[in-house]
């Protein structure tokens, strides 16, 4: 089994964060990042083509592995999912950036056959980076809607779970999502709202 951060540390950090200690988040972030990233890569290398990556399953597994579940208040779980959604976003964006870098011919890189296969994807990485940018603009106008998008699209949470994390009703989640998604679509398809 791979090295993993001590459970109680994560558990403590989660508790501290929930109690409002923001620096706990700073410590939590890299730990969870590494775990999620590792799991995601492992899933993908195992399943390869034709399989989808189940974000929720991934985060659940990270949760089970990272958090000492003996004395954890349930509320910590929402916090864990919230940070995980944020981190999944970051992981994917990081990968997309590297992908773009590679495509620009960064360094002495040569494109291998394997990679040529993934290039068939219609500029997935560019799309993702644009979405990320649009989501940042959305966050400036409307932080809650951008969070809903993050939790749902990057964290794989369903409406009920999102409602729990953000302390809003499920109906509100649905409405937020509709609006945010329409706006993001508009941004990505090139027209501007401004």
């Amino acid at each position, binding site marked *: *089994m791979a*090295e*993993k951060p*001590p*459970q*109680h*540390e994560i558990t*403590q*950090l989660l508790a501290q964060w929930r109690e409002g200690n923001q*620096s706990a988040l*700073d*410590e939590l972030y*890299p730990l969870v*990042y*590494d775990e999620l990233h590792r799991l995601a*890569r492992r899933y*993908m*290398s195992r399943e*390869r083509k034709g399989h989808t*990556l*189940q*974000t929720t399953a991934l985060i659940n597994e990270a949760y089970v592995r990272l958090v000492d*579940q*003996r004395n954890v208040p349930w509320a910590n779980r929402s916090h864990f999912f919230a940070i995980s959604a944020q981190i*999944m*976003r*970051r*992981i*994917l964006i*990081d*990968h997309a950036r*590297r*992908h773009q*870098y590679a495509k620009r011919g960064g*360094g*002495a*890189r*040569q494109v291998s056959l394997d*990679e040529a296969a*993934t290039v068939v*994807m219609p500029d*997935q*990485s560019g799309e*993702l980076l644009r*979405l990320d940018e649009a989501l940042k603009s959305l966050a400036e*106008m*409307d932080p809650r809607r951008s969070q809903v998008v993050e939790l749902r*699209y990057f964290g*794989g949470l369903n409406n009920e779970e999102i409602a729990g994390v953000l302390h809003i009703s499920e109906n509100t989640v649905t409405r937020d999502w*509709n*609006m945010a*998604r*329409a*706006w*993001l*679509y*508009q941004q990505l*398809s090139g*027209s501007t*709202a401004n």
Partner: protein
Amino acid sequence: MTPERWQQISRIFKSAILLDNEARAAYVASRCGRDDSLRVEVEKLIDSYGKANADEFMNGMAAEAAAPLLTDDEIGPHQDILNKGQQFGSYIILDSLGSGGMGEVYLARDTRLDRTVALKVLSPDISQDKRRMQRFRQEAKVASSLNQPNILTVFEFGEVDGLTFLATEYIDGETLRDHLEAKRLKLSEIVDISIQVLAALDAAHEARIVHRDIKPENVMLRRRDGVVKVLDFGLAKVTEHKYSTLEHDSDPEAITEFRTAPGVIMGTINYMSPEQAKASEIDERTDIWSMGVIMYEMVTGKIPFRGSTTSHTIVQILEKDPVPLTKLVKAPVELERIVMKAIAKKPVERYQTAKDMLADLRSFQKRLEISAELEQTSPLVTPDEPGLGAKKKRVLVFAVVGMLLATAAIFAINIRRSSRSAATPSVTTPAVAPVERTLTYWITVQKFKGRNPYQDPFSLAGEINFETGYRIRVNVRSPQQGYLYILNEGPASGAPEYNVVFPTPTANNGASLVPAGETIQIPKKSWLRFDTQQGVEKLWLVFSENVLTELEPIKQFASIETGGLITDPALNKSIKNLTDTHSATKPGVEKGETLTTVKAASKLLVYAIKLEHH
């Protein structure tokens, strides 16, 4: 767009999309009044809403859409910068050796001299940082001038297509970190490795080069002859820069940067000197400190300063007095003196030069050789350090077959001897060679869905809340040889019935005597499964210096068919007597992050792992 405008649009939008086309147009028109631009915005958004639905925009999840991106880096957070077979300047890439915080390492052939080298290629983001590169270049230049057998030889430092690389000799071997995890070191080996690292430091310090990042990951042991090579002279400064970025900057980008160097924080901080932790001036004595910490770890299996978080660790480094070696293991006093001197908080109280420390170690080594005692060749008796030895499980002696419907563990003891020693309260710990039984355990959990394993197994230090579908394996290890018996006591009320978990006919040839230092997986190839009855499942661990005649008969009940159920009431009764008698003298329990160590101040250890079963 202002947030106010956005909210205005939002209020109209959310109702509008619930209406059919005709009603919608009217509704929007009435809500927007004469504000045409508002109407246009709302209509555009409604239009996008329809298209997004039709296109199934963001219907899946980001990870699904972006999954192929995740597969293009198999090695680490960085993509492979170079590929096998690729020409890179005058080098041909033969293989990838892995990645570190700074970039990728490749096995390559230098076509000019036809020699095999290790090629470290710095990741582009580091290469692009001019200030850091300048420093790095200068240090690498100095480091390459070092010519000492224990320092990794630097052949070339250069740039190809904007990528900075370092070509060094290639060492076929393992890092001291891997070595430490794989086995316990003998005293003679510890001294030998330390002397070689110090010899490298001595040469570097003579040349006024401070390594700054001495840690087990930076020490290679050559497979062929055990020669030690110290790596990464001159790279440390760059790493250190990353550090300060994280420590003093809450910018999320900085955190990302930190994590692109996995292990930088966790790995480095444990060996960091107080002056490094305080970010004050450092000199050669900082390397002496790190060397001391490594030696401490090699001897005891524990890192002297370690907190649950980075900042706790720093506080420990700055303030905590380390536990003396001899409190943890049976180590020679002279060795303790050397190590403790190296990790004195104040640089002036440490060895002032690597040469001085080297001299002390060499004379210690001589004495060892002269006395050539058993001690020299036998592994140190150490309590276990969570997270160090635990990861690599040695080949196991006990092959327990697909097993019992219920589990439990017992740490057993020798009754004859214990009648004398068990009465001794554990408070009075004799200063010399205390009578003690030590057993370390951890539990591996495999989730099952139906008959099939589901997800990867994970390990826990001890008690878990057991859930349906969990199957487990108990791992035990002791620095001492002893007789081991493991029994499961289910949650049933009334007179308990036990199931044998260990020994079994297939494991250890059916014998209960377990060799020192061996990790025993129970069962080895399959998993223990509990029945569906809820409550506390006890695994009684009984570990004894001498054979326990009253427990030996349990072997005959070890069978897969019966789940190891002991059907002899008299035997069950005598087991109960044993556990009742001896669980009264509670063993000391050290719960680590990944292991639990149980110690009894007697020749018999009896301990129950309790698993809550829901």
